[in-house]
């Protein structure tokens, strides 16, 4: 409206505002009027006065215009809401599918993000988290280098002295292969997380103290620091500081500090902590002196100076070690604290830890689920949009501007998305306990703490709403009312193509997940069913203490008196745990050319009943003799794998030993290979001998009948030998299942995800099918009149969907095959991925989708053509 060669000098901005404020139909003349008046004023007064007047007019107009605008907006909003709600009511099924599908997707995405966030937050809470690192050692082994989190006890203190970069060093050890008996008064508990550390641990890590001084808490050799939970267990509400705890019946420790419970997202977990001193060794299996350079039992953590480059410092350490002992094949690496939880899969460590792979996979799945849910939402909304074309036409005829139509449709999809978000948050709240038990981690749900997460989800919802609203908003609003009202829809084709792609991609993901889940499940079943080379059924074990251990033969005889106990044996380790100690195996006539790393073997100490009790098979030679117990280490039984590396015709009668060449024992037999580690690993060489000093566990084969009574009997017997000892027993097969805990959990999660994805995808398909059928009602009616049978019509309606599923299969198969092949590399013993799984998954998908659409297609096919042709 404004012209550049402006004869009127009214203020331009004011004129523009005025233009917008004035009633639509009179804008031109009124602006002219205002300008004329402006000129009149200019004739009498000066220019500023005229301008002021003009602006004044604008301001005077403002309140009224704003009021008008608001009123109309509200009126229209009311109308939009009414229409939206009417639409929801009219298409209840569709609305339900649309909203619940998105809500489920959002909720599961929320859970996954919650978990991912938790995984990523590990160890970040320490004040100096970015400056702390752990020393890992790398030991060359025949089967590839072994990286271990356990390093020698002397490393930390030495480094602190040698390198200015190290501000503080601390060693930490948790007693894993033994539960520590702690008593206070008449309260006795077996402590699993009994930690040993240097006093400097509280300088390196941030574990907030409730009571006590972190500087001095562990400075006394007999001091102990405990957590709140620990304190609660022994003292209830009483003041713990200064109380004296008895450890392993004879050692007194005085409580000098009470710290907050260790957060769940800390890789270091302990309930109590004592300083690392010489006297610890009298009651705990801590081998080597505090300053040993050869034995690897400790975790060493360093607090580095600010700005220290980890790479440069590693080099420095490396050079130092080479200078110290050029022969040493052990190398060190530094691992940042914040990467310990997720990037330690290859590192030998006993902590349960996360896996960055799983984080990536689950993030990806979360993304997929969300994508599918959003696709559905968009798909259904756009499918329904065509039925709104008439409404758009009418609105346009009545005089709706395009802008207001855009506003209406965006608003509507926002409303749907908002409802879905609310529903999703509801689902999250309700299912949170289930989620926690499923992932086995304490992930608290605190919306105020997870604001970023909540914000992220809201943004995603918003994006989905905008995306799904954009089609009807931008496309429908551009319809020519005449065409729409006449019933001509253009551009249906391109849209259909788009929708097909969406459906195909959904089912690709779903089929991929079905295959993945089945492979995981089959592998898991395979692991459980695999013959391990020994009998693990009905095996109960418990740790022996004091008198039980000293008199284990008598104890064993006593137990066997009960008819419920079939067999009993004593060993140094639990068969499932990799707590076998690996050392170098030497034998008479060993080829000096055999590398030390190639002749490593694990060893285990057992009694002569071991092989019989576990139903193992001796392939050569004989079992231990009765004398073996009197002459420890004199007799050796090796497994087939060890026999193989010896490369001799017959090992029987050969002298052999571990570590040194004293040749304390003679090989008397070869036992058939059995899986003494988890099935992730191959069977490696194993040496069995009788060393009563290392006996620790009693294994009992129990008749399944009268199980409870038998266990009561065992407990009674234990008490007879060791009155104070709390009896804790385990089943061996349960211990085995724990080995594959990570796989089991992943399997469960994948199972859940697959169901979810399939469900959401089916919802989408159902909605789409109903739409397709509806838009072809007339066609079906005419076909029926011309003589088409119902099955034929179901066929032509289903054909389209089957095509989708076929295409989805073609894409999903190679991707999931590649993916699962990679996953199976984690196992030494694995299933072959059979082509049948793929066919089964594809068939299942076809079946499920056919069932999903059948409701609609059958309904349409069996409808009376008269009704369908009369429709409208």
């Amino acid at each position: 409206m404004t012209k550049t060669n402006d004869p009127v000098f009214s203020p331009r901005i004011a004129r523009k505002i005025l233009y917008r404020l004035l009633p639509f139909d009179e804008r031109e003349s009124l602006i002219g009027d205002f300008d004329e008046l402006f000129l009149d004023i200019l004739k009498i007064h000066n220019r500023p006065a005229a301008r002021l007047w003009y602006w004044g007019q604008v301001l005077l107009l403002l309140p009224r215009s704003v009021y008008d605008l608001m009123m109309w907006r509200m009126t229209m909003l009311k109308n939009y809401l009414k229409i939206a709600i009417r639409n929801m009511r009219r298409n209840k099924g569709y609305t339900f599918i649309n909203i619940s599908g998105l809500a489920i997707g959002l909720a599961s995405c929320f859970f996954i993000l919650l978990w991912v966030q938790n995984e990523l937050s590990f160890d970040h809470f320490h004040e100096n988290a970015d400056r702390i690192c752990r020393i890992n050692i790398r030991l060359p082994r025949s089967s590839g280098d072994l990286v271990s989190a356990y390093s020698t006890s002397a490393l930390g203190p030495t480094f602190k002295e040698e390198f200015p970069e190290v501000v503080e060093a601390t060693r930490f050890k948790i007693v894993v292969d033994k539960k520590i008996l702690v008593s206070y008064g008449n309260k006795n508990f077996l402590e699993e997380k009994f930690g040993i550390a240097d006093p400097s641990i509280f300088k390196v890590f941030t574990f907030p103290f409730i009571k006590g001084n972190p500087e001095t808490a562990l400075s006394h050799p007999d001091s102990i620091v405990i957590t709140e939970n620990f304190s609660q267990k022994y003292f209830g509400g009483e003041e713990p500081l200064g109380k004296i705890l008895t450890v392993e019946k004879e050692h007194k420790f005085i409580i000098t500090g009470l710290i907050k419970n260790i957060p769940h997202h800390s890789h270091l977990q302990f309930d109590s902590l004592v300083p690392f001193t010489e006297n610890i060794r009298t009651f705990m299996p801590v081998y080597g002196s505090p300053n040993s350079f050869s034995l690897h039992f400790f975790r060493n953590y360093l607090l580095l100076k600010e700005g220290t480059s980890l790479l440069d410092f590693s080099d420095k350490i490396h050079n130092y070690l080479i200078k110290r002992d050029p022969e040493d094949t052990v190398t060190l690496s530094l691992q940042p604290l914040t990467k310990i939880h997720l990037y330690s899969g290859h590192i030998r460590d006993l902590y349960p830890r996360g896996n960055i792979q799983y984080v990536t996979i689950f993030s990806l799945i979360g993304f997929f689920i969300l994508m599918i849910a959003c696709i559905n939402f968009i798909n259904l909304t756009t499918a329904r949009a065509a039925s709104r074309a008439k409404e758009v036409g009418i609105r346009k005829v009545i005089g709706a501007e395009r802008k207001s139509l855009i506003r209406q449709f965006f608003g509507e999809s926002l409303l749907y998305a908002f409802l879905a978000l609310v529903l999703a948050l509801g689902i999250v709240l309700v299912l949170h306990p289930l989620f926690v038990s499923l992932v086995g981690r304490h992930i608290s749900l605190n919306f105020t703490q997870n604001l970023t997460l909540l914000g992220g989800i809201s943004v995603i919802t918003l994006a989905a709403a905008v995306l799904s609203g954009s089609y009807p908003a931008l496309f429908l609003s551009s319809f020519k009312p005449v065409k729409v009202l006449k019933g001509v829809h253009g551009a249906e084709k391109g849209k259909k193509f788009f929708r097909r792609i969406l459906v195909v991609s959904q089912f690709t993901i779903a089929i991929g997940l079905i295959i993945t889940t089945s492979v995981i499940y089959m592998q898991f079943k395979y692991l459980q069913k695999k013959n391990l080379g020994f009998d693990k059924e009905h095996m109960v074990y418990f740790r022996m203490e004091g008198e039980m251990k000293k008199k284990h033969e008598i104890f064993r005889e006593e137990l066997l008196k009960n008819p419920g106990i079939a067999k009993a044996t004593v060993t140094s380790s639990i068969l499932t745990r990799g707590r076998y100690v690996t050392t170098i195996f030497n034998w008479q006539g060993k080829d000096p050319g055999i590398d030390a790393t190639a002749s490593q073997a694990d060893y285990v100490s057992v009694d002569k009943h071991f092989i019989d009790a576990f139903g193992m098979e001796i392939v050569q030679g004989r079992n231990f003799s009765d004398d073996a117990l009197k002459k420890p280490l004199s007799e050796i039984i090796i497994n087939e794998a060890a026999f193989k590396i010896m490369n001799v015709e017959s090992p029987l009668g050969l002298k052999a030993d571990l570590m040194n060449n004293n040749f304390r024992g003679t090989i008397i037999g070869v036992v058939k290979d059995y899986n003494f580690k988890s099935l992730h690993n191959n069977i490696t060489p194993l040496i069995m001998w009788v060393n009563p000093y290392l006996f620790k566990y009693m294994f009992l084969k129990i008749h399944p009948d009268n199980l409870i009574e038998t266990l009561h009997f065992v407990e009674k017997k234990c008490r007879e030998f060791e009155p104070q000892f709390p009896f804790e027993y385990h089943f061996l097969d349960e211990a085995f299942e724990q080995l594959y805990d990570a796989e089991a959990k992943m399997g469960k999660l994948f199972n859940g995800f697959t169901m979810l994805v399939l469900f959401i995808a089916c919802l989408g398909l159902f909605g789409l099918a109903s739409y397709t059928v509806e838009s072809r009602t007339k066609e079906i009616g005419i076909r029926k009149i011309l003589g088409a049978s119902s099955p034929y019509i179901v066929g032509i309606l289903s054909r389209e969907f089957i095509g989708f599923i076929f295409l989805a299969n073609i894409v999903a198969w190679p991707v999931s095959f590649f993916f699962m092949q990679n996953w199976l590399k984690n196992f030494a013993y694995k299933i072959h991925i059979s082509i049948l799984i793929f066919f089964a998954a594809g068939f299942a998908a076809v079946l499920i989708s056919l069932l999903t659409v059948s409701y609609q297609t059958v309904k349409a096919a069996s409808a009376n053509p008269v009704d369908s042709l009369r429709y409208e």
Partner: protein
Amino acid sequence: MNTIGRREEQILLAVGFLVPEAYLVSIKQYLSHIQGKPISIGAVHVPLRRLERAGYIRSRLSDPSPVRGGRRRKLYSLTDRAVKILEENKRVHDMLWAKYANLKS
């Protein structure tokens, strides 16, 4: 609504006087002049709109005028209905005045 207010009556009279040059500004200035004090645009425009909607005046757009930056004027003229109601009002008015004057004198 068939009745018109005082201001509306004034505006109708102004339009009748100013035709064919009756438009917002001229009406406003004419009334200000007669009245002897300035009158706001709104006080003219709002009744004008109402009168137009009620069918007392009709409007047409003039040819573009260079004075107004090429913008057209919305010119008003009276309809028969307006003339009728003005005359009716005047009759009532006059009669009332006459009675009143008689009483006074």
